[in-house]
């Protein structure tokens, strides 16, 4: 038990307790200086139903979902190739590296490419494809690109893990039985990769929902996501209870995604055991 104590205490005190405090703050009154005052209320959650905030929520979910879909389309072939490659370790390292290297620096790299005087625009100008720089930065496109670029490794790794276990003999069997490559993919590979696909989608969707840096740096003031809304309420707008309520709306969406993915997984396992 004593082995557990320091870690559990630390996480309890500096992770769990703060979240509970925030839950409490979300149903209390707003104080004079934006802090929290005694008295229970649901007004902050009700305030979130304002179209202005619902739009932020909707945009957040929509972008996170779109980013997840694009990551899936890009990640699946890459994971497949890595699982079948002789240079598995090297390729895996190349995927893991951006997973751990500075997210901030990588987001800056996108800015460097997309800004008006950036590399993409100067190439386009030079090739004569456009006569003046395109506005690429501070657009939904930039945010989406940033999300996909930032979270793609989260998709590749779990899919790789499930594809690696796939027995090539199954595909040989399918081929000998006359299945075309597309049929082999959709009827053998994809069903067996499903656990990885589900895990990957969750691992991209959840951090994309909570993203802050990407939308702040690439989206500018107009493309606010819910993470930016929360941060704003705690800093410049100084309405802590409302910021807390917005946080728990985000928690709600995250939990819904987790529950959905667990359901899908359990259903797969139930079918597998039948």
């Amino acid at each position, binding site marked *: *038990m004593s*082995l*557990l104590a320091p*870690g559990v205490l*630390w*996480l309890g005190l*500096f*992770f769990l*307790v*703060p979240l509970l*405090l925030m839950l409490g703050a979300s149903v209390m009154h707003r104080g004079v200086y934006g802090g929290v005052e005694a008295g229970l209320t649901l007004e902050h959650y009700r305030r979130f139903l304002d179209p202005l905030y619902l739009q932020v929520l909707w945009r957040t979910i929509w972008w996170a979902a779109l980013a997840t879909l694009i990551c899936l389309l*890009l990640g699946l*072939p*890459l994971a*497949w*190739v890595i699982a*079948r*490659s*002789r240079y598995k*370790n090297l*390729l895996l390292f*190349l995927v*893991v*590296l*951006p*997973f*751990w*290297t500075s*997210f*901030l*620096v*990588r*987001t*800056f*790299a996108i800015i*460097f*490419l997309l800004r008006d*005087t950036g*590399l993409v625009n*100067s190439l386009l100008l030079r090739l004569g494809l456009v006569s003046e720089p395109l506005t690429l930065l501070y657009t939904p496109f930039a945010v989406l690109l940033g999300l996909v*670029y930032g979270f*793609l*490794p989260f998709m590749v*790794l779990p899919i790789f*893990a499930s594809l690696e276990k796939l027995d*090539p003999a199954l595909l040989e069997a399918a081929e000998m039985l006359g299945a075309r490559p597309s049929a082999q993919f959709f009827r053998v590979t994809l069903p067996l990769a499903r656990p990885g696909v589900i895990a990957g989608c969750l691992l991209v969707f*959840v951090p994309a*929902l*909570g*993203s*802050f*840096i990407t939308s702040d740096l690439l989206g500018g003031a107009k493309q606010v996501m819910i*993470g930016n809304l*929360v*941060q704003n309420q*705690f800093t410049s707008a100084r309405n*802590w209870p409302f*910021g807390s309520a917005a*946080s728990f709306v985000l*928690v709600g969406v995250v939990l819904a995604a987790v529950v959905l993915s667990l359901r899908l997984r359990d259903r797969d396992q139930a079918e597998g055991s039948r």
Partner: protein
Amino acid sequence: MSRRVSRSTAVVAGTVLLFLHLPVLVLVIFSVNASRYSVEWTGFTLDWYRQLPGRTDLLRGLRASLIVGSLSTLIATVFGTLLALALARRRFPGRRTLEGLLYLPIVTPEILAGISLLLLFVLLRVPLGLGTITIAHIAFNIAFVTVVIRARLEGMDRSLEEAALLLGADELTAFRTVTIPQLWPGILAGALLAFTMSFDDYVITSLVAGTGSSTLPVVVYSMVRRNVEPTVNAISTLILLVTSLLIWLAFRLNRERPLAV
């Protein structure tokens, strides 16, 4: 195994891999470009790197990052190792639940972890600064370290430990002379990852930093927002070099397990 990858799939995969690395490579290349305002290549220079030592804000940020990074890594690694050992070796009520709960800090959006900690610190009137940053970093690193080391313990042969105990070693001696040497690469990999996470973190840090104390990412973030100076490319390149090196080391140490959680 290297069969059955069609050429088109390989091309798609190669393009995706390129997409993952090209933007950063471009950044690195232009960190030695002489032109100040445009992306025209006007010649090689190390000027932007030479300007870095003169930037006191960057140096102070670096110093803060190193202090916070090493302190939080040390503490989180000790706590995480103990936690992983307890989870792998002991049977106690609620073990499964605890194991599940460990993933909570990993999946919780950083912005929420940061904001809620800020709330706690303000309520308890803890002055914000390097201390609160370190506390926050330890909290998010414990879970990562535990998961990495737990994975290592899973793949470890228990019979050596058992042999030591059978041969009369007490539990502590067996732990010190058998378990720890075997576990060492895992612990080191966990520590390297923890340091990298701490060294890179912006969101949580910026929330609990208060005014006056900024780590390197916080300083770089404000430079990026203000934009355009080529020194950002230079410092970014250096940060990339350092973190890539750490990750490469961790990867070497933990070869059997991809470093994903």
